C-alpha cells in the first residue's frame, strides 16, 4: 500500500467506516510508516476539536420547512403575486427613468442580494417601494413565527414569540395567537413571554380591553399577577370592576386578592387625579 492510498482512508478508518479487510491493510501500513501515523494523529486531533463545536439543531431544518409550507399553503398569495420578473422589471424601470444615480446603486445592491436596510427606506423618492418589500418579508416572518407557536417544543414557541416581538406587527392574527398563548400554553415561560410581547401592544385600547377580559378567565396566579401589574402600568381604569371582584372573591389566591385591592385603589386614585 502506498502512503497516499493509506492517508486518504485514515478518516474513514478512524470513523470505523472501513471493512475489516480495508482496516487490516491500513493497520499493516501504519505499523511500518511513521509518516502516516503522524497524519493519523493529526486527523484524529482535528476531529476531536471539531466534535467540541456547537452543532446546529435538527429543529433548525424543521423551522425552515415550516416557513416553506406556510409560504406554499397560499396564505402568502398576495406576496407571491407581487413577485416575478415582470413586476421587478417594471419598478426597476420606473426608478431608472427617474435617473437617480443613487437609486441605480440601490437596484444593483438589491439584485446581488444585498438587502434593503432602513437607511434606504428613508430615501423619500423611492422609499415606499422598499417599504413594501420589507413589509412582505415581515409577513413571511410573521407566518413563520405563527407556525413556530404551534410547535410542541416550548423552546420553539418562545422563539416564535421572540420573532413576533421583533417584528412588532399589529395584525389580528398575531394578537389572537398571543392571547391564546397567554391563556392556554402549557409552559409558563411561554405564557410570560406572550404577556411581555402583549405589553408592547397595550397602548391600543382594544388590546387593553381584551386583557381585562382575560383577567376574568382562569390563569396561573403568577401570570394573573403580571397581568394586573400590566393593566396598572397602562392605567387601564376599566379593569377596576374586575379587580374589585377579584379582591372580594374568597376562592381567589390570597396574594392576587391583595394585589387586586391595591391595584383597584391605585387606578381609582389616578381617575380622580385626572378629573
Amino acid at each position, binding site marked *: 500500500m502506498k502512503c497516499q492510498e493509506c*492517508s*486518504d*482512508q*485514515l*478518516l*474513514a478508518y478512524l470513523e470505523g*467506516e472501513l471493512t475489516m479487510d480495508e482496516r487490516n491493510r491500513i493497520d499493516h501500513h501504519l505499523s511500518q510508516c511513521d509518516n502516516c501515523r503522524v*497524519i493519523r494523529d*493529526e*486527523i484524529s*486531533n*482535528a*476531529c476531536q*476539536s*471539531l*466534535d*467540541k*463545536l*456547537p*452543532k*446546529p*439543531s*435538527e*429543529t*433548525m*431544518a424543521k*423551522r*425552515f420547512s415550516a*416557513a*416553506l409550507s406556510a*409560504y*406554499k399553503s397560499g396564505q402568502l398569495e398576495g406576496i407571491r403575486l407581487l*413577485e*416575478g420578473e415582470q413586476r421587478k422589471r417594471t419598478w426597476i424601470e420606473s426608478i431608472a427613468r427617474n435617473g437617480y444615480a443613487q437609486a441605480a446603486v440601490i437596484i444593483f445592491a*438589491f*439584485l*446581488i*442580494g*444585498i*438587502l434593503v*436596510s432602513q437607511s434606504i427606506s428613508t430615501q423619500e423618492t423611492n422609499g415606499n417601494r422598499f417599504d413594501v418589500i420589507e413589509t*412582505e*418579508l415581515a409577513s*413571511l*416572518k410573521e407566518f*413563520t413565527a405563527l407556525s413556530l407557536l404551534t410547535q*410542541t*417544543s*416550548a*423552546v420553539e414557541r*418562545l*422563539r416564535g414569540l421572540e*420573532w413576533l*416581538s*421583533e417584528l412588532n406587527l399589529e395584525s389580528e392574527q398575531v394578537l389572537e395567537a398571543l392571547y391564546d398563548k397567554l391563556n392556554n400554553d402549557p*409552559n*409558563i*415561560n411561554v405564557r410570560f*413571554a406572550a404577556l*411581555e410581547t402583549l405589553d408592547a401592544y397595550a397602548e391600543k385600547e382594544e388590546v387593553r380591553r381584551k386583557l381585562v377580559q382575560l383577567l376574568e378567565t382562569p390563569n396561573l396566579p403568577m401570570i394573573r399577577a403580571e397581568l394586573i401589574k400590566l393593566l396598572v402600568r397602562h392605567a387601564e381604569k376599566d379593569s377596576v370592576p374586575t379587580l374589585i371582584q377579584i379582591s372580594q372573591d374568597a376562592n381567589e389566591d390570597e396574594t392576587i386578592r391583595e394585589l387586586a385591592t391595591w391595584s383597584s385603589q391605585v387606578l381609582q386614585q389616578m381617575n380622580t387625579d385626572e378629573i
Partner: protein
Amino acid sequence: MLQARNGDLETLNVLFERYCGMLYSFFMKRTQEHSLSEDLTQEVFLRVLRYRASFKDDGNFKGWLFGIARNIQNRHWEKRYTKSEILHEDIGNEEAIEIVDARDQPDAEASRSGDTALLYQALERLSEEKRQIVIMRRIQNLSYIEMARILDCEANQLRVRVCRAVAELAKHMKSLIKERPYEMPGMQ
C-alpha cells in the same frame, strides 16, 4: 438554484440542507451564540425564498448566499448597537425553560474557549467546497450516504475528499497555533 428561482420550492429544501451548516458556522464564528446563529441562518434562507427571483442565471449562488449572510450579519450588529439588549439573551438565561432536545444546547465551555476561535479560523482557510464537506460530516454529523444524496455525488469519493479536507484543516490549525503561540494556550 435556477429551479428554485423558477418556483420549485422543494429545491430550496435541498439548498437548505446543502448550506445551512456552512451558514450556521459562518454565524457561530462571528457571534459565538448558538440560537442566534440558527436564527440568522433561517433569516438568510427566508431572504433567499423571498428574493430568489433576483438571482441571476450566470451568477455564483454561494457568493450570492454569503453576500446575504454578510449583510444580515452587519444589520444584526447595527441593531445590537442601537438596542441595548435583545429578548434573545433573556430567554437564553432562563433556567426554567423546558429543554426538549439536549443537543440543542451547545457546549458552553467549548464555544468560549480559544481553540474554538482557532478552529473556525482554520475552517475559513479551507476552500468553500472543502469547508462544506467537513462541516457536513464532522459538525452536522451527516452520514456519507446522506451527504452523497444532498451533494449529488458518490459516497466513496466523499470519504476520500472529506479525509483530505480534514488533513488540510489539521495543517491549518497547526500553522495558526504557530502564528499565535501565546494567544492559544489550550492548543498544544
